[in-house]
């Protein structure tokens, strides 16, 4: 079994109108090599589901997005993703704005093949008024509490960045926080990962290391070897986010033709030219992982 494939081969399996979940958290551990390949493609009308970072803004700026389902879209020290903000203030994309925890619950419900999950979260808040399709359900037990029946958030595809993978789809994800990459994987019909490192087998005599394996290989349809593939976001264990790059990217959002300039100058036609345009491999590998 060999799931090794190119980013372009992954994109050829995607279709207009698909619902695509993206792992990571803000400017952390985003599968940017695949996002850039979507930017280079003619895919459109996508629904993007994410704890969003630059991938959401870029896909919106490029006109790829019909709808965003999100817990937030942020570059952390740049609190609001500039191109997402622009798209929102122009009314250019549909949104389903969720509480961060609701997104987790909706993905988990999809992974468990449930139609909805009952929760108190969202009650008496804008989650109810801004998502008028959401219904409530009354507890069948003595308490009788009325709760939000949050619909499952089913994904056609999940895109996830990992540190190490083998060709059977075994993966290891390092760093302080798994975020909800496992739930994105389980909610999706197909999972494609980008990996910093590809090996023949991740097998090890050290069971502790296997706690970094977040989801089973049967979920993984494709493994893309993409060193530096999370840039400009943090890839824990490898390199930190590139805040200098993100600031320059954010600045383009205020310029006329800013996106097209960034797209042409930086995204380019392939990953080799991308890495060269952002300062080269040594620059990216030298980016420190931030502390707070």
């Amino acid at each position, binding site marked *: 079994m060999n799931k090794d494939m190119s980013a372009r081969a992954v994109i050829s399996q995607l279709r207009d109108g698909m619902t695509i979940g993206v792992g990571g*958290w803000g400017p952390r551990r985003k599968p940017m090599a695949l996002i850039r390949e979507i930017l280079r493609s003619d895919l459109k009308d996508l629904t993007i589901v994410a704890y969003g970072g630059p991938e959401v803004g870029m896909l919106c700026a490029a006109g790829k997005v019909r709808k965003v389902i*999100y*817990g*937030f*879209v*942020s570059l952390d020290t740049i*609190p*609001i993703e500039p191109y*997402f*903000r622009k798209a*929102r*203030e*122009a*009314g250019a994309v*549909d*949104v389903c*704005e*969720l*509480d*961060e*925890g*609701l997104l*987790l619950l909706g993905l988990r419900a999809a992974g468990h093949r449930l139609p909805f999950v009952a929760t*108190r*979260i*969202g*009650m*008496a*808040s*804008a*989650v109810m*008024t*801004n998502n008028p399709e959401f219904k*409530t359900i009354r507890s069948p037990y003595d308490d*009788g*509490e*009325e709760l939000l029946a949050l619909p499952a958030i089913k994904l056609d595809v999940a895109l996830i960045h990992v540190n190490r993978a083998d060709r059977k789809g075994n993966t290891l994800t390092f760093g*302080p*926080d*798994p*975020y*909800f990459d496992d739930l994105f994987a389980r909610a999706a019909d197909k999972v494609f990962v980008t990996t910093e490192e590809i090996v023949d087998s991740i097998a090890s005599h050290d069971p502790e290391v296997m706690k970094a394996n977040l989801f089973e290989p049967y979920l993984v349809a494709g493994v893309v070897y993409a060193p530096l593939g999370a840039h400009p976001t943090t890839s824990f264990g490898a390199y930190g986010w590139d805040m200098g790059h993100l600031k320059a990217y954010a600045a383009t959002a205020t310029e006329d033709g800013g996106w097209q300039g960034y797209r042409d100058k930086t995204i380019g036609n392939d990953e080799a030219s991308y890495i060269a345009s952002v300062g080269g491999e040594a620059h990216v590998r030298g980016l420190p992982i931030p*502390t*707070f």
Partner: protein
Amino acid sequence: MTTATDFTLAELIIAAAAETWRGDGELLATGIGPLPRLAASLAKLTFAPGLQMTDGEAFLVEEPVPLGARGSYQPRYSGWMPYSRVFDSVWSGRRHAMVTPVQVDRYGQGNISALGPDFRKPKVQMLGVRGFPGNSVSHKNSFFLPNHSKRSFVEGEVDVVASAGLKPSSWPAGAPADYVKLGLVVTDLCVFDFNGPGHAAQVLSLHPGVTFAQVQDATGFPLLQAPGLRETAAPAEEQLAVIRNLDPHNVRATVLKGNPPGVRAA
């Protein structure tokens, strides 16, 4: 304890905000932003040792981590707190956060999501509701607002209800009324809470040199004067020493415009 005579408004606010965690016992304390984080840290190191805090990333620490570049400081970790466990903690109710909404209304509803009447095309996209809906129906929340004005404490309702509040008609009939628990609201002018009759906002203390009329003028909804309304207590020298240790780069001086002194000139 020696009452300080020379302190900034930010330091006064940190000491006043720390009080919101008094009596909480053992729970996760989260202060979002420099002053709330310093306030939670000060509370833990002085009168609330049961507070549990993170390093701002994914680990629990028993000694609050100082703000900013760490230099030679190395945190010692005593637990793991990835976001999945943060949510478990939030939903269990064993957390008390202090956060900074952009708008707050008379019902204690808070907004960080967006501004303007049309959510489909907001005038200003802000942060989104983030974790506020879940936080607000799960555990106690306190607020810090750095600019007390009618723009922040609005006349009607907040544009987007990110944190649920104490407005009865927003809740289904028969919903338990006690999900929303609001602690202190600390601003650059005063400290108030929503514990007046019928959850009315009532001012507990006025910062030195500030009058009640001045606070009311800067607030879009009616305020009561709490019984025992007093002047916000000046920090003690011992508290200032703790704050300096927690904030070696003086980030607190950058939060309020001009870093004004704690006692306003008359």
